[in-house]
């Protein structure tokens, strides 16, 4: 019989047991690691170069000329040469092709004949239109310059175009999608994981059996939280490293950025675990945990800028988005990761998260059940 009973020892024993159990639970691993990574792989590959215009090249098109070669070098244009005329017409009508291009061979002293067919079924024809116009501008300017060199008569320039490109960080979709997926991973681990664990420990009388030992209540909560924290942060670190080394996710200040992201993850997890505590208290059985958890996670998953920026939503929906905690976690995460902000620069987001923390735990304390 131990007179100097150690709460730390009991807390750590629960943390160790819980961590082992989490590692062996397929759903925890799937939600925290597999899903976010699948989304990252899918969206990193879709996102990559942004938009491209699919242009069918008509039979008999002059593909040897300089104009065609220039067009080919444009990254936005995807020239398709392996479809029959019939296929191309069908695909254009369906919008699977954005345009069909036919360049006539250049005849000296004759204007270049360019025939382009666009489709009402595709909105991306406009992109090709402006690319072509941009190229025509240079061709015509060159022609004009040639004429000017023979003529003393000064033709006034209607437009003088000067185009420059500054060097900057390339915007990659992975830089947007990864922080969102990190938020999603923390959200689902915090809400689902916590709700399931505490409900099942209560229903299977594991907690009751614990209460027959000298363990304190706070040791049980703290031990469980510690295990989930370690697991989720390891998961977050794994996602960040995979994103960085395989998909070129930008980490502006390297290790410092990673640490800042982990601090944000930990803060977010504490809030989301609070939702889990609430659900474990109001759920009657394990069957009611998924619907209740989805009520918490789905709106945030869709509206908090996980896949696309909140600014893409109509104004009224943005108000909803801006009320959700995950929105602010995602925003803070992106500022830290991409803009290189420190934790001191995201105090606005942290403050809103803090308000959520207070609300969530005030409710959790009221609804949580031990037995």
């Amino acid at each position, binding site marked *: 019989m*131990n007179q100097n*009973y150690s709460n730390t020892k*009991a807390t750590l*024993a629960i943390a160790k047991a*819980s961590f*082992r159990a989490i590692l062996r*639970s397929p759903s925890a691993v799937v939600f925290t690691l597999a899903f976010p990574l699948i989304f990252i792989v899918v969206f990193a590959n879709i996102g990559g170069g942004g938009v491209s215009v699919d242009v069918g090249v008509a039979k008999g098109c002059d593909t040897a000329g300089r104009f065609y070669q220039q067009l080919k070098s444009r990254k936005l244009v995807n020239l398709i040469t392996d479809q029959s005329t019939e296929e191309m017409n069908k695909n254009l009508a369906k919008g699977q092709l954005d345009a069909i291009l036919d360049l006539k061979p250049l005849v000296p002293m004759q204007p270049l004949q360019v025939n382009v067919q666009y489709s009402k079924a595709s909105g991306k024809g406009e992109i090709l239109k402006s690319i072509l116009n941009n190229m025509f501008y240079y061709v015509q300017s060159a022609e004009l310059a040639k004429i000017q060199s023979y003529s003393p008569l000064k033709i006034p320039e209607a437009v003088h175009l000067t185009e420059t490109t500054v060097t900057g960080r390339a915007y990659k979709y992975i830089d947007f999608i990864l922080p969102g997926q990190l938020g999603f991973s923390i959200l689902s681990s915090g809400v689902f994981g916590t709700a399931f664990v505490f409900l099942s420990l209560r229903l299977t009388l594991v907690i009751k059996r614990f*209460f027959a*030992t*000298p363990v304190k209540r706070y040791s049980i909560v703290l031990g469980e939280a510690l295990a989930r924290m370690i697991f989720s942060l390891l998961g977050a670190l794994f996602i960040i490293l995979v994103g960085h080394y395989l998909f070129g996710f930008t980490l502006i200040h390297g290790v410092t950025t990673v640490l800042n992201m982990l601090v944000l993850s930990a803060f977010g997890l504490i809030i989301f675990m609070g939702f889990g505590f609430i659900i474990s208290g109001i759920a009657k059985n394990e069957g009611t945990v998924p619907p209740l958890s989805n009520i918490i996670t789905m709106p945030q998953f869709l509206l908090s800028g996980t896949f696309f920026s909140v600014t893409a939503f109509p104004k009224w929906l943005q108000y909803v988005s801006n009320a959700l905690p995950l929105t602010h976690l995602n925003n803070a995460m992106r500022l830290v990761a991409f803009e290189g902000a420190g934790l001191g620069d995201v105090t606005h987001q942290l403050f809103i998260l803090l308000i959520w923390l207070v609300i969530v735990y005030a409710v959790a304390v009221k609804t949580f059940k031990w037995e």
Partner: protein
Amino acid sequence: MHFYAMAKQPIITVKNLVKNYGDFAAVKGISFEVYEGEIFGLLGPNGAGKTTTLEVIETLREKTSGEITVDGFNIETDKNSIKQRIGVQLQAAGYYPNLNLAELIELFSGLYGIDKSPMEMLEKVALTDKAKAKYKDLSGGQKQRFSIATTLINNPRIIFLDEPTTGLDPQARRNLWDLIREIRDQGTTVVITTHYMDEAEVLCDRVAFVDGGHIIGIDTPDHFIDQLVASGFERKKEVKLANLEDVFINLTGKEWREG
């Protein structure tokens, strides 16, 4: 001769225990003593208040009124000292999911704040070969033996077993009786509930009958039987020298099976 027969020192004292759940009175003022080193049986039909009484003594439920002392500690002021001195097996309690037996013992050692080798504990209940197995994959008898192992981790003075043999086959039941007697012989007091009177008769040193929230008799099984016989009671059927369970054991063998 049992240890208990030599020194009748009370280790648990219950005086006028009352437990109400809202309007429902589950326990209506019961008093009894459990002596150090005995196997004490609480017997009675379902809903009699046996489990409630146990759970109040185990510090798992608050009493409505009454006085309880466990190994010299008052239940109101010294819950933690009591928890450190007792081992509890609950009816139908589960164990932490996804852990094997050795890991569960390790967890419980931590909860008691002590270091115990899982193998040493599993050896006491002959489960060392199941150290890597999950609780849910054990047979009924193995589950009960494992539960008893978790009650012994803190070297308790008293262990409480709530219907440990319910649902077990005759061999597993006998095997568990042997284990419980062994624990008693090593000086641990055992408080047990059961529905099986044959079990109480061979296992318990003393029994208390509980019905409708009251204790209606406490004595040794022998005394109860002798009294009944002295009152002129006779079994309707002629008593045979063996019963059907004897036949079962005789036909299927005494050794205990897994599964």
